[in-house]
């Protein structure tokens, strides 16, 4: 259940499949960190294929947000299902990371 990484309008699109949890998050975090250190400044998490995100997945989002902030970069989330939205809500993440309904809007947002 590998996470996909693609590019769109100079943005890094991260597409976790099925889940973002304890077992697959470290690898995803490592890859994103690498990309940001290589100069990536715009990251969008497309959660359209993700069933759930645990706190380990939230950690990936947080690490990404912190790194981008240092580099004056920008990030957004999109297409999260209701349960993931609830998790983002409960954890207070929606107040620090933008969530949008579709990928185009998210890309537009980080490219502004």
């Amino acid at each position: 259940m590998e996470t996909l990484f693609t590019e769109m309008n100079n943005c890094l699109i991260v597409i976790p499949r099925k889940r973002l949890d304890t077992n697959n998050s470290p690898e995803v975090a490592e890859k994103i960190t690498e990309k940001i250190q290589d100069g990536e400044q715009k990251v969008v998490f497309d959660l359209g294929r993700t069933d759930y995100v645990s706190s380990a997945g939230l950690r990936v989002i947080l690490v990404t947000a912190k790194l981008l902030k240092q580099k004056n970069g920008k990030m957004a989330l999109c297409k999260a299902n209701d349960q993931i939205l609830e998790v983002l809500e409960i954890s207070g993440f929606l107040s620090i990371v933008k969530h949008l309904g579709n990928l185009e809007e998210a890309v537009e947002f980080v490219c502004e």
Partner: protein
Amino acid sequence: MDNKEDKQIILVVDDAPLNIALLSNILSSSYKVKVATNGKKAIQIANTEPRPDLLLLDIMMPGMSGYEVCEKLKQDPATASIPVIFITAKTTEEDERHGFELGAVDYITKPISPVIVEARVKTQLSLKKNMEDLRKAYAIIETQKDRMQQELNVGRNIQLAMVPKDFPVNHNYSIFAALEPAREVGGDFYDAFVVDEEHICFCVGDVSGKGVPAALFMAMAKTLIKARASSDPSTASIVTHVNDEMSKDNEGCLFVTLFVCILNIRTGELLTTNAGHNPPLLKHMDGKITALSHRDGLVVAAMDGIAYSEQHVQLQKGDTLLLYTDGVTEADNLNEEFFGDDRLKRLLADWQDGPVKKLVENIIEATHAFEGDNRQADDITVLVLHYSGQKVDDEKSFDIEIGNELTNIDRVIEKFMEFSSANGISGKISNPICMAFDELLTNIISYAYVDGARHEIGIKVSLIQNAVVIVITDDGLPFNPFTREDPDTDLSIEERKIGGLGIHLVKNVMDEAYYKRHVDRNVITIVKNIEQAK
């Protein structure tokens, strides 16, 4: 008092010196004789200590007559108990009747026969002595009775203080019990308490004997059961343990009949152990009543080393279980009839669903009404449990054990997803549960073990009554994750930390989340309702 003074005193009252001399003669060898020649003097002597033990009283005297003297003495409580024998020449039946009416104990007619006087005096004095002994004995009994009553009251207070008045509540069952102590206390008791999130324990018992010893014995039984039940899921094992403890140093040879139950409130599985107790009644939803008449061993505390057995009873939704003590069925009325099993069964049969408290009250009221004026001879205890949950279908649950490695979490998730699709559990429900698995199992695997050895973590998933119930068990360090302080979710990106967030999420997305240390294991139970999914 020395021996000389020990002689009993006879007061001879007669206006004729010759008669006095004659009577003194007859009596002075065995008794101390005092004399009075008129009524006034006689009353005076009768009121002087030491009072005479008996009066020989002439009737025809100048001034106050013998009748008047007798009447006066009988009216005064201080002298009323001194027996009076009339000695007189008057011999009509009417005279004798009048004398007896005034309270005389005997009648001797002149001319006096010494043998008769001696014999009658002796008889009356020994009667008087018997009366006094009886009175003393009675006084002793009265004080003893008071003391005993006090002791019984202490026993009753202990007894009533020991039984709970608040009962556990849950949507799967309702339970209520009441105990009415008899005037002379028997040692009934009941108990009902939550063991853990899935189990309640309840019991009814009856200690032989009464008063403080029975009350203390009952307190001991109740305490031992409760203490043991917290870490022992088997009623057989609990009763075996309680019996061994209570058989030790049981010099009073008291014993207790017990019916102990543990109910799994989610599955309706009931474990019962009956140690010499009345068989409880189980009423099914269709109205059919059966008695749980299996016996699992001897009364408790009679003999140590007995291994008790236990029975599995599957409660169905709508079942009502009635536990009681023999104070109910053996209540008797003035016609010496017993209340009996049939009356009890009828009350249970007639009861339509409603508050269980009402059924308990109905039974106690009916018992009292049956007894009528016949005083309640024994304690009356009634406990009713109504089960409203549903049995879990075995196919709707699964167990999995994993070793303490993070990669094994995927196995649990996989198995759970198969279970979810087989049972039509939507993502709305399964996604938060998967997340909870990830959080809880990660926590356990990462922090619960310090020895680097392999450990097994047990996971049980059940689909019950529109709720998914998950129980996770591990043998790691005792730790209740749910007591961790909630993280601050208002911090900025820079200040944010992830620690503690996982448990916070679990608590929020699940409908129920509990922790319990069960002997040497941590037990976490989480519940996600399907109907009211968040």
